[in-house]
């Protein structure tokens, strides 16, 4: 039994992280799942498996869906997200492209204009800058400019934001840039459930969707219910999820930072600060309703993102809360963001360039007018 527990440590810790935070019922559930991995009540899958299965199912259901990008086929995907798809669907529907983003992105958008449903993979969204004219001017604006006659049902997907040690040109977060553009939908999954539900919704959506994944989350396992594993499962676009309910402080965040916020929330709970964690899931449309409802409940806001602070996603969230819920605030709104620097390579500098759980905890205490704990926070 102990051996089984050890083997499933990743699963266990993820179970403790997610859901309602450690209480007795959860602990029992942990035992149940760790003993029978493939239990009837649910499963645990990685974000990679979630994405792969979502794309697989949508390609099976609709012959107009196809995948293209660098190394998506024979290489099985640079990050193995498209593993097995070439074998299953053949080279007409899983296409390896040359390293020419402007060209193949434009091709994808043209195919979508005609009526196909392309999934264009960018090996990372840094490379999408070479094709950004097509995302904005060819994809996002066309339905409007054509008076509603030509829609563009395309999904642009790939890893976004910082990985580990990949330095300045490979670490940028583009959520704020794409989130600004009317005509785009921008989705930011965190866990496996998000990845499955949002990917399926994105593929079925008749408009261009920018789907920002995170490389470091691909290998993380999350428990998922049978409902999530069903081929008909989708999540609504434009709706945030309350990951953890709380009463003292709202932390609004997305993608990998959701995990950090949940860990910080666990720590803060020990000090009697009850944190509500809002997982945005969608940058555009932005779920201002859920954000504001939460802040009106807790009266304190902390925004958290990995990207640069100036004109970032957090800036928009703070503006929304100050505009809509000013009279409910008991403290100024705050942001924890990536540092205002190009991403450095040295590990110590890199650590300083992105938010750490300590930063979240410190800001939370500050917003709650608590003295900063002189002891080093455990995380």
């Amino acid at each position, binding site marked *: 039994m102990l051996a089984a527990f050890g083997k499933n440590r990743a699963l266990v810790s993820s179970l403790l992280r997610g859901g309602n935070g450690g209480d007795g019922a959860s602990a029992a559930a942990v035992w149940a799942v760790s003993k029978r991995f493939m239990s009837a009540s649910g499963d645990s899958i990685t974000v990679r498996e979630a994405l792969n299965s979502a794309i697989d199912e949508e390609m099976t259901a609709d012959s107009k869906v196809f995948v293209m990008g660098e190394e998506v086929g024979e290489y099985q995907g640079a990050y193995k997200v498209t593993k097995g798809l070439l074998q299953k669907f053949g080279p007409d529907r899983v296409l390896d*492209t040359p390293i*020419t983003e402007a060209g193949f992105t434009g*091709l994808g958008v*043209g195919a979508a204009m*005609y009526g196909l449903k392309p999934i264009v993979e960018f090996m990372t969204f840094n490379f999408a800058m070479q094709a950004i004219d097509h995302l904005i001017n060819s994809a996002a604006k066309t339905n409007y400019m*054509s*008076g*509603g006659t030509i829609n563009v049902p395309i999904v642009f997907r790939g890893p976004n934001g910082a990985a580990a040690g990949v330095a300045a040109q490979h670490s940028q977060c583009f959520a704020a840039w794409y989130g600004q553009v009317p005509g785009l939908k921008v989705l930011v999954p965190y866990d496996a459930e998000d990845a499955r539900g949002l990917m399926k919704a994105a593929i079925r959506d008749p408009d261009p969707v920018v789907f920002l994944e995170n490389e470091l989350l691909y290998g993380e396992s999350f428990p998922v219910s049978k409902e999530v594993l069903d081929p008909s499962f989708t999540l609504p676009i434009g709706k945030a999820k309350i990951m953890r309910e709380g009463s003292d402080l709202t932390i609004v965040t997305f993608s990998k930072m959701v995990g950090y916020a949940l860990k910080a929330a666990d720590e803060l709970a020990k000090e009697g600060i009850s944190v509500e964690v809002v997982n945005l899931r969608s940058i555009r449309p932005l779920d*201002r309703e859920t954000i504001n409802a939460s802040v009106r409940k807790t009266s304190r806001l902390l925004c958290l993102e990995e990207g640069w602070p100036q004109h970032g996603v957090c800036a928009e969230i703070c503006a929304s809360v100050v505009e809509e819920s000013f009279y409910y605030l008991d403290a100024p709104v705050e942001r924890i963001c990536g540092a205002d620097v190009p991403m450095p390579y040295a590990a110590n500098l890199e650590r300083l360039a992105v938010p750490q759980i300590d930063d979240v905890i410190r800001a939370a205490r500050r917003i709650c007018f608590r003295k900063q704990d002189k002891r080093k926070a455990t995380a």
Partner: protein
Amino acid sequence: MALRQAWQKAGKVLNGGALVSPGSTFARALSTSSDPLTLEIPVPFKGHKVDPPSSTVETSAAELVDFFRTMFVMRRMEIAADSLYKSKFIRGFCHLYDGQEAVCVGMEAALNDKDCIITAYRDHCTHLGRGGTVLEVFAELMGRKDGCSLGKGGSMHMYNKKGGFYGGNGIVGAQTPLGAGLAFAQKYLKVDGVTLAMYGDGAANQGQLFEAMNISALWDLPVIYVCENNHYGMGTAEWRSAKSPEYYKRGDYVPGLKVDGMDCLAVKQAVKFAKEYSLKNGPMVLEMDTYRYHGHSMSDPGSTYRTRDEISGVRQERDPIERIRKLLLSHEFASVADLKAIEKEAKKEVEDALAKAKESPSPDAPELFSHIYRKSYGAEAYGADRKESTVKLP
């Protein structure tokens, strides 16, 4: 037998009321014969990695009359747009196509509704060729409700999806990979059609064009890259922007053809040839040697980088409408009076459309927020003052 068929066809057309001049005193009526007719194309094709098609082209009197009529309508439409712009009915950008009519008219003679066309911003006549109406072009230019894009696109953003016309694109060169994508979709869905991705000599140096050519050649996509070489990219002559202005050769491994773009029949022959090739083998480049009489746009007089003599010289020697006029007269398919009657009717069509377009109202204010998404999930959008104007998207 053939004569009876010709008369029957003429009769049908007569009942349609379009082609015969009512008060003609000449004995011979306007020919509407669809009997095949072969003509020689005077300027030879030049091939790159392909044997050019024959310079003997099949046409008919009816087709020539149709060429004349259509190009004349297009010419009148563009000239009317010039006046509209100067009287401030049209704002922003307006890029006129007069001089280049033979390209889009010749193309349409070789295409059908399974084919697609995508072009850049000099798109008014291309839109017409794909089945658009003069009314919806004028209304769109003036930003009115009855415009083909509901007044929300303007001069550079005219589309007709049902007619296989994908715009109307403002970013130089972007339409070329989009065109490769349309061809990809046609091949994927096994549609028996090709895509003509049009671009100018200015765009011919764009990197994404070569990326598109590479992928379309690798994947054997049925796309024909049509370079409308009017010899000036805005104010920059081709020899100042291209190391090699032989644009039909620029595809390298993609075969190409240089075509006299002022000759409808040469264009028709080239496109027919390219379509047959492309459906089987993948991309081809067609360089249309053409000319625009106006400047790049309405803010460009067009005479600072080229001489007035050059412009009037082309108009005299190579005008596409005059060429067809000469053909019709010399073969006695039409009399001078017949052609005058066609011109008069075309002018009237354009004037009527203009009058109607001027009556068309501006779009209603709520249209500001429509068509951002095909499916908006009730998301909110904001006007300049969000406390005043918050809209749940339709």
